[in-house]
């Protein structure tokens, strides 16, 4: 399992004591690269795929990527977190899009 960081979106959350992804990863896997100031995952193998970091990222910079040993390349699942709900957009390998709105409060 793994998380991919879009460097064009990641700001490294410099104004926070600790970036949201670094603070919340249950496996202590997210860190900030001291050279470029962007988030990265210490070891892609060790991700549980809970998507906590993806949902909490204020910049929408993180994306879950399934390991290739399990899944084809080309699909995406993007959560947009709102005050009381999450809007999930799933795009499959053939480009078909499904959207789900799920309450959280």
């Amino acid at each position, binding site marked *: 399992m793994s998380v991919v960081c879009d460097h064009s979106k990641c700001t490294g959350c410099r104004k926070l004591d600790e970036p949201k992804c670094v603070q919340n990863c249950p496996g202590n896997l997210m860190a900030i690269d001291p050279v470029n100031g962007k988030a990265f995952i210490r070891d892609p193998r060790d991700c549980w795929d809970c998507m906590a970091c993806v949902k909490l990222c204020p910049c929408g910079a993180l994306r879950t990527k399934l390991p290739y040993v399990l899944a084809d390349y080309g699909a995406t699942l993007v959560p947009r977190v709102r005050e009381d709900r999450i809007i*999930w957009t799933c795009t499959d390998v053939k480009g078909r899009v499904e959207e789900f709105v799920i309450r959280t409060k």
Partner: protein
Amino acid sequence: MEGSNGGWPATTGQWEKLDTDILIIGGGTAGCLAAVAAKEAAPELKVTIMEKGHIDRSGCLAAGMNAINVYMNPGETPESFVRYVRYDACGLIREDLVLSMAEKINEVVRKVEQWGLPITKDDNGQYAARGRWNIKINGESLKPIIAQAARDTGACVLNRTVATNYLVVDGQVAGAVGFGVRDGKYYVIKAKATIIATGGAAGLYKPNNDGGAHHKMWYSPFNTGAGYAMGIRAGAEMTSFEMRFIALRTKDIISPTGTLALGFGAPQVNAKGERFMATRFAHWGGEGAPTPIRVWGPTVENKEGRGPCYMDATHLPPEKVSELKASYLDMYPDIVLYWAANDLDPGREPIEIQGTEPYIVGGHCQAGYWVTMDRSTNLGGLYAAGDVSGGAPYKFVSGCWAEGVIAARAAAERARAASHPELPDPVLVAENNRIFAPLRRFNREGDGVSPQEMEERLQKVMDQYAGGVSTYYETNEERLQVALKQVRRLKNQVPYLVAVDLHELMQAHEVIDRIDLAEAVVMHLIYRKETRWPAYQSRLDYPERNDFQWLKFVNSRRNPETGELEVFTRPYERIVDGDRYLPRG
């Protein structure tokens, strides 16, 4: 401590001494509820949570939950629940513990609903049932909701702080020690009462996904048995490590099948399309057989050449398939991505299923501390709640909440009366040396065994000799003796562990804890000479259940004088009437 190439902060190894009235180790499902209950019972007491991750997303609930799986729906009682759990656990449970947990369930569920958990209601305004003991929730934010409640009560939270051992003075637990994953400090936390709530253990056995997907597993891979190992090392009495948990999950992505079976009525079928549970496993109860049998069934089908096995949801119309996906997004979003990536439509083709590797967990099975009704252990001042506590299976989320509340009330009572004992310095110095040894070795030698290497070796041994996936969960005396010998060899390799930074130091202690636990698991498996829970505990040399000799608990305790782990039995006590092998008996 001297750093090497800036791998760890300058504060690494520095002593940080703290005092608290109640120490809760593990800020997960049970720990957060314990914190709230402790502050409610005794607002004047200082309550501290020691948490390896961050309490907002730590433990099993990181991704969320889509159901509460223990709730007394209308018409059910704590007694009917005990009858069901006893049947599901093949006749052997601590009925006193299950009863006391069941009596608290509806109260704690209502409490968490008041904190903001959305629970689905039916047309009459009642909680919507999803099965006999289940209700539907929108629980994506379940963990941050209970974490906020714990913070709101004024509990002090030490995030990113790993517990490594109890402080034991004259057989009483007087707090715990550990280290900070961020600051590297050596934490010495004195407490008048301590609640262990660290959860169960993943990663003892080789996972059925390997390489880049090795953490694609049922249980949180970051729950590594710390609480079990600390108890074993300190001489706590433990029970039922041989009753391992194996989850029936969807193939590859390891998402829950309860959502399919209970929520969407999908039966199990084999490669020939045969509903094998209803035919070959009818005598066990078919689709309603005890949980171990529902994973043993497809395991037998695979072993005997009738696999792959599936759950068939092809009866669902498109709008129901969409509802199924929405349900998964609340707790296991990656199956929706997996279906999208592999062009799979569960409304058109059956979903392949498999059993996971074995885990040690007291909330589904009953491995853990041997406790009394108030969840106190045999070590004075130590209480256990949630997955780390034994004898009471079928806890799941709400049962862990209930146990957190029960343990906290007892701990508060003790903390009000107790005082802080003096701690002997040599013990604290020795533990500091033990904790930071992998960093020091890396500094000094540069070479040794990495935590990952040791973990893989342990998992291989357990898989091949102690009933892992590769042997269809079955084992025998001879294989188990090999496992024991090899696990003990690994224990002797611990001094060679190296860690390059604090993250690896955490991983080093995770593997040390797993090895100590694995030794106990193997000894328990050797001791029970029957097969009580097929798949969970399958002895090829004793393939039948034997109530005459083995309707009892297998317990263990490290003898403080000799240092040896001693295994013995404790009797089963029946409290609730009825047939032990029938769900409503």
